[in-house]
């Protein structure tokens, strides 16, 4: 190759970064038929799990389910690679139930890479994206570090922690995106020159020790569960032997050790210029922020079936290594634990997410999308969700199709993206169920019902997959109708059964549907009672039964949330025309005008969530929209009934 020339390779979509966001973006775009290239610093490090060896958990599990329901890959991949799985919060309501699985890290990577290898329209290029070629606020192409030029109009940035990355332990640091791996040091400047603002964040990971040197007798064993399904809606995971995790707690000794060495922490000594996550905080931070707590949980998690390394969740730290060893040995059960990998912090550039639209495209450079940790999030699930949406929208944008947006009332993915681009982030963002005001509707058990249709329309799911979801929806309706129209009377036996279940007897006939509302009445028992009274409820699959039961049980709450959504829908999705002159609105506060002008929300709903914009400001805005004669019913093709 002589001089670098503009006649490079032609791709419809280029993705930079082979982490959890990058692979989802690349797969979505290729599966939608776009010629796609995934550029990565190392083809040997695709879909790595550099931190927690797990997928799922409260809030995160819901994201993975939704990714799968749309036709993304993370759910299927963890199903191939898990060494432990369990359902969290089974005793609590369905809104907070979530799956969590421990992964064999190597297998997770290999499985994902195999999927990439087998995907048409996708090429992988080892290289570093060094410069974006932007003219008149539109992307034209990308320059790689080695001089190659990739001509493309659509780019998904998914660089994770690699932009000007630096790894830190105590007062030692060196440039790296992860330990031992060179960072991407060129792109940040090019992005800034193109008008994109970057911030600086910090994330950390705990030490790994040799699992043979821990003392499980001092810990509480945490086994997996035999579940019939995994994360994926479309395939049943292969049976396997599960491995346990272990739970221990820090002791007063641990806390004392940390306190004695706090002055060596990069946080206190001021080395770290970024902010760290509040939600998986380092042990040093926990001790500083919660001095009244006398113990913190430490979960010992295996990292794979072929290694003895275990991950110490809860002991995230970037204190000097000798201090890490002291902290570990001061923790019950870890007295003799041998350190294999020290914990460390990584500091990196992130793209300030308020610069992105609800479909993750830059408001400054058309054709530039961004997804994952580079947007200020933490977690593989948060990254993958953004990667999927960015990849879908990059593919749509490449052919001039309207963007695909999920609302807060449709998916956790919607909540995630809206939170990021509307409210921004002060520290790396992590998903919780409490962030979703409609969490009763956005459940683990109904992700496919909410989203499979979009997946199929976009080309990420087969017709047959959608059909299976439709069939189930139909069956749910059928069974519900049956229960609501079948009356049960007391014949002596019924009331006796009800009492034995711990619920009150009936004095007048009730429909089966009404009885099902009682938490003590399980649907399976009810079906049996119906059969005993001569009715034929029919045979249904357990997923159908689960749905019917949940709906009956929480009907009141569900209806209220649906009503609320309907009430808000008019305002929530009321479109604000692009180019709307916010700065010419009178009657709103200076701060509101300022924020609106800067952030340019696409809908009234988004506008209402901007900090500094009050309900009164929204009313004024609505008035102006009326006057301007706009009649938007929604900016996206995706708004539909939940």
């Amino acid at each position: 190759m002589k001089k670098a020339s503009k006649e490079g390779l032609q791709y419809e979509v280029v993705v930079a970064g082979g982490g959890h966001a990058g692979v989802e973006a690349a797969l979505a775009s290729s599966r939608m038929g776009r010629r796609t290239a995934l550029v990565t610093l190392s083809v040997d490090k695709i879909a790595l799990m550099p931190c927690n060896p797990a997928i799922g958990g409260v809030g995160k599990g819901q994201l993975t389910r939704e990714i799968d329901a749309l036709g993304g890959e993370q759910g299927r991949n963890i199903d191939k690679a898990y060494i432990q799985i369990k359902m969290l919060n089974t005793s609590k309501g369905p809104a907070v139930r979530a799956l969590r699985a421990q992964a064999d890290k190597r297998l997770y990577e290999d499985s994902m890479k195999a999927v990439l290898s087998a995907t048409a329209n996708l090429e992988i290029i080892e290289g570093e994206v060094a410069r974006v070629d932007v003219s008149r606020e539109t992307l034209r192409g990308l320059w790689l570090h080695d001089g190659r030029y990739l001509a493309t109009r659509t780019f998904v940035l998914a660089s994770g922690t690699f932009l000007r990355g630096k790894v830190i332990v105590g007062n030692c640091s060196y440039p790296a995106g992860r330990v031992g791996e060179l960072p991407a040091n060129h792109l940040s400047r090019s992005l800034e020159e193109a008008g994109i603002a970057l911030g600086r964040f910090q994330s950390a990971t705990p030490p790994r020790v040799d699992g043979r040197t821990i003392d499980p007798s001092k810990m509480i064993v945490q086994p997996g569960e035999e579940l019939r399904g995994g994360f994926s809606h479309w395939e049943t995971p292969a049976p396997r032997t599960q491995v346990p995790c272990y739970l221990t707690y820090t002791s007063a000794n641990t806390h004392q050790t940390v306190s004695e060495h706090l002055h060596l922490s990069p946080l206190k000594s001021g080395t770290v210029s970024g902010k760290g996550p509040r939600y998986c905080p380092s042990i040093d931070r926990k001790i500083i922020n919660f001095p009244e707590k006398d113990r913190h949980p430490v979960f010992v998690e295996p990292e794979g079936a072929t290694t003895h390394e275990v991950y110490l969740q809860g002991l995230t730290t970037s204190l000097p290594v000798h201090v890490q060893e002291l902290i570990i040995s001061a923790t019950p059960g870890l007295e003799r634990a041998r350190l294999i990998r020290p914990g460390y912090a990584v500091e990196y550039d992130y793209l300030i997410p308020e610069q992105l639209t609800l479909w993750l495209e830059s408001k400054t450079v058309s054709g530039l999308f961004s997804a994952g940790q580079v947007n200020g999030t933490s977690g593989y699930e948060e990254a993958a969700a953004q990667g999927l949406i960015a990849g879908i929208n990059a593919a749509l944008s490449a052919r001039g199709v309207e963007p695909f947006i999920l609302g807060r009332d449709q998916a956790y993915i919607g909540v995630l993206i809206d939170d990021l681009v509307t409210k921004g982030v002060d520290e790396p963002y992590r998903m919780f169920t409490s962030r979703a005001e409609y969490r009763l509707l956005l459940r683990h058990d109904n992700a496919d019902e909410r989203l499979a249709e979009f997946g199929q329309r976009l080309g990420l799911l087969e017709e047959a997959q959608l059909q299976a979801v439709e069939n189930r929806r139909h069956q749910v309706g059928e069974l519900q109708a049956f229960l609501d129209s079948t009356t049960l009377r007391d014949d002596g036996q019924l009331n006796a059964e009800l009492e034995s279940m711990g619920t009150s007897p009936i004095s007048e006939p009730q429909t089966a549907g009404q009885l099902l509302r009682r938490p003590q009445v399980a649907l399976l028992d009810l079906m049996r009672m119906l059969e005993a009274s001569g009715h034929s409820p029919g045979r249904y699959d357990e997923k159908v039964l689960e749905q019917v039961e949940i709906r009956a049980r929480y009907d009141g709450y569900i209806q209220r949330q649906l009503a609320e959504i309907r009430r808000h829908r008019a305002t929530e999705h009321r479109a604000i025309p692009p180019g709307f002159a916010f700065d010419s609105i009178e009657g709103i506060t200076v701060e509101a005008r300022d924020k609106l002008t800067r952030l340019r929300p696409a809908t009234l709903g988004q506008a209402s969530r901007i900090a500094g914009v009050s309900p009164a400001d929204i009313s004024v805005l609505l008035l102006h929209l009326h006057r301007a004669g706009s009649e938007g019913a929604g900016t996206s093709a995706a708004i539909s009934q939940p």
Partner: protein
Amino acid sequence: MEDGSGAKAHASHSSVLVVGGGVSGTACAGTLASRGLDVRLLSGALDSLGVAEYSPCFLPAGAGEERLLLGSKEPAGLGRAWFENMWALPGASWGVVDRRRVSIRLKEWVEEIGVELRQGLATTIARVPQGWLVGTAFGESFTAEVAVLSVGLSLGGHHLIGEREFPGARIGEVPSEGLLQALKAHGAVFDTGEERVGPRLWRLPDSIPPFLRRVQLRPAGTLRGGAKPGTSRLAFGRGPRTAGDQYGAEYLEAWLAPTPPLAGADVAVGQTSECPVGLFPDGAATGEWYVSPGLEQQVVGAPLSRRGYVVRGLVFGGEQAQDTQERCATREVMEGLWATGWLAGAGHTSASLLSGIACADAVERVIRQRDGRRAPR
């Protein structure tokens, strides 16, 4: 913390410290541990343990050394990790390894056999009364009686793609500057080492150059029997597949450039001790293909996942070579400091592997002699 800190002060010392977890480093560390020695392996990339960095081709190291590969000296686990993930052309004397699988098996073996693994980037080295001290980028210190350097071409390493030069022995690798300076300060003398690496294709091109002939590579398995003395051909035999093998493949395809037939050989493709030229699968689970450096120009138009490059680094050279064990490229660079693998002049993967084993032999002798001389405890 009465006993704690005292014990920890000694916890970073071992009899042997191997710096660099590549082909030779893992072989050396694992072999020493299998013989009961106390050995720590410090690697900057624990997830790439034992990865053959450049080409997936595995060549015989020549006539005499082959015995080392045939179950006489190397530990069984080491042999299995390599040969159960190797695919070979029947009748020829070379194979192709699944680098990823080998790496996973090697890590498993190295953990099992009792090597103390440690993630760390070595940035300095110094002679101390106990032997040698190696410091890491995170401020850790490790001491050992004997230190083995198996850092490949990363000393002063850089790679060239086209006409441009980039830091690190390969893309993405953090170079070890400090280590090089420290060694020079101790009087080490270096030569330049160089290796040309072919590109990789993300998938097979639609049309393969017509002069390449398709062949079938079969699983090499564990070696049986052994090569006849004086021959230059490795006897690959069929062995048990590794547990959890997901390939299900009876064979892997490769495309070879023809070479003149050897006298007496009944297979006209492949060469005995030189690198075969062609397209080789870079593992059974990945779709990537390795292209021999000479063939780059002929496979234009196909999607390249990795460009070819030339890697240059420093290797120990000059008059300091005191003891090259047979022809297995290992040497004691200074008292108690050994070099093995690429750093010691090994030219390819199998030579590195043999070098690591030979280094373990030599280091074991040194340690046992010292133990013998010490007063009984």
